């Protein structure tokens, strides 16, 4: 019962996008994303203008937070009506388009430097996180494939990694629903906690962005948590998270081979094709746009315009993050998967924070 409810909200995004929906059927939901996102932007400007007009010092709360809060308020009170749901589920599509366009704000040299540092830290994070999550899940006596899904979800990239792994290791749908619900709920919590911790520790934009990209699981939440801190931190968070996403195929392939060796999943016949299928294509798009920006394909004004297109795409994404999060239904999941996920997340956040401090010391981020 509970799992079907979770599936409706948690895996809903993926399921609804996969279901055959006409382009016209997406319009109401996309319009809702735009209205909620723009309302966030409007409130940010309104508060700033009000403070200026009345000589008041009001806190500058970014549109990102307003858009997420409005979305959360709708989905957790009146709910998102069925007519909007397939369009709202396109928020992941806008996220990916936004990441590709964000490539215009990076020169390839920056990508190489920051991406190189990120990849080293990601390799360490992956090894530690996968090992820790595996032992933690076993300690809590979770089903082995649920442990794999939680390990993949919390160490690489949340929902996409769980969905990619589910098919590859023949996991139960119920297990993946639990894992997705745990990751989404924890993502929603970290969205608000990370900026607070970052400010308390006086992290620089680069250090905070790197930490967020390494520790927050879902790409949408990592992007939002970065943008909530600052524009620069948001950029770095997306870059680090994109590097992390690029490893998804390798880790899922490793698990697929492991479960196949135990006779509990199908053999992977063509490993190259498997890697290509699981590889997030938006990483390539991001690199292409960054390369074009580096070789001077765009003028300065055009770069600013492409960067703004990316901001609009993210605005739709942030509205979607709030609209698809139904806290009541997510909390209906079993307590143990959530507990394992929560303990894992805390440990991974601490490990990655340590790694970022280390990188800051050696590479002067």
């Amino acid at each position, binding site marked *: 019962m509970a799992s079907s409810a979770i599936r409706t909200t948690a895996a809903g995004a993926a399921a609804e996008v996969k279901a055959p929906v006409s382009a016209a059927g997406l319009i109401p939901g996309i319009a809702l994303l735009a209205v909620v996102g723009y309302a966030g932007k409007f409130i940010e400007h309104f508060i700033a203008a009000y403070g200026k007009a009345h000589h008041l010092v009001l806190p500058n709360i970014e549109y990102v937070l307003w858009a997420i809060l409005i979305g959360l308020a709708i989905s957790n009170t009146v709910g998102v009506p069925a007519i909007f749901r397939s369009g709202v589920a396109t928020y992941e*599509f806008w996220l*990916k*388009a936004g990441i590709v366009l964000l490539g215009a704000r990076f020169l390839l040299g920056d990508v190489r430097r920051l991406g190189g540092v990120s990849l080293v830290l990601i390799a360490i994070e992956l090894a530690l996180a996968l090992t820790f999550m595996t032992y933690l899940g076993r300690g809590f006596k979770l089903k082995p494939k649920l442990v794999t899904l939680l390990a993949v979800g919390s160490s690489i990239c949340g929902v996409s990694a769980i969905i990619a792994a589910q098919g590859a290791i023949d996991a139960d749908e119920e297990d993946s629903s639990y894992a997705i619900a745990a990751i989404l709920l924890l993502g929603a919590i970290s969205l608000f906690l990370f900026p607070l911790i970052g400010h308390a520790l006086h992290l620089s934009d680069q250090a905070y962005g790197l930490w967020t990209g390494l520790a927050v699981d879902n790409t949408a939440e990592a992007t939002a948590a970065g943008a909530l801190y600052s524009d620069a931190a948001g950029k770095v968070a997306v870059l680090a998270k994109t590097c992390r996403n690029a490893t998804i195929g390798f880790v899922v392939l490793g698990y697929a081979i492991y479960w196949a060796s135990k006779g509990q999943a199908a053999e992977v016949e063509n490993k190259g094709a498997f890697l290509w299928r699981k590889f997030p*294509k938006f990483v*390539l798009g991001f690199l292409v*746009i960054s390369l074009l920006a580096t070789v001077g394909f765009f003028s300065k004004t055009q770069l600013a*315009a492409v960067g703004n*297109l990316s901001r609009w795409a993210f605005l739709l994404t942030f509205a979607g993050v709030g609209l698809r999060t139904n806290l009541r239904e997510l909390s209906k999941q079993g307590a143990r998967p959530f507990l394992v996920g929560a303990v894992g997340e805390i440990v991974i956040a601490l490990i990655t924070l340590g790694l970022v401090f280390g990188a800051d010391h050696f590479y002067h981020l």
Partner: protein
Amino acid sequence: MSQASPLHRISLDTWAVLLALAAALLVRFGVLKTVPW
């Protein structure tokens, strides 16, 4: 069983990349001159 058309075989991920690249090209070739924020 009906066969998926070539357009349906393109993943959502790839569509997002294509849309983003097309938008960037529209900016580059002056169709989208300014994008306010």
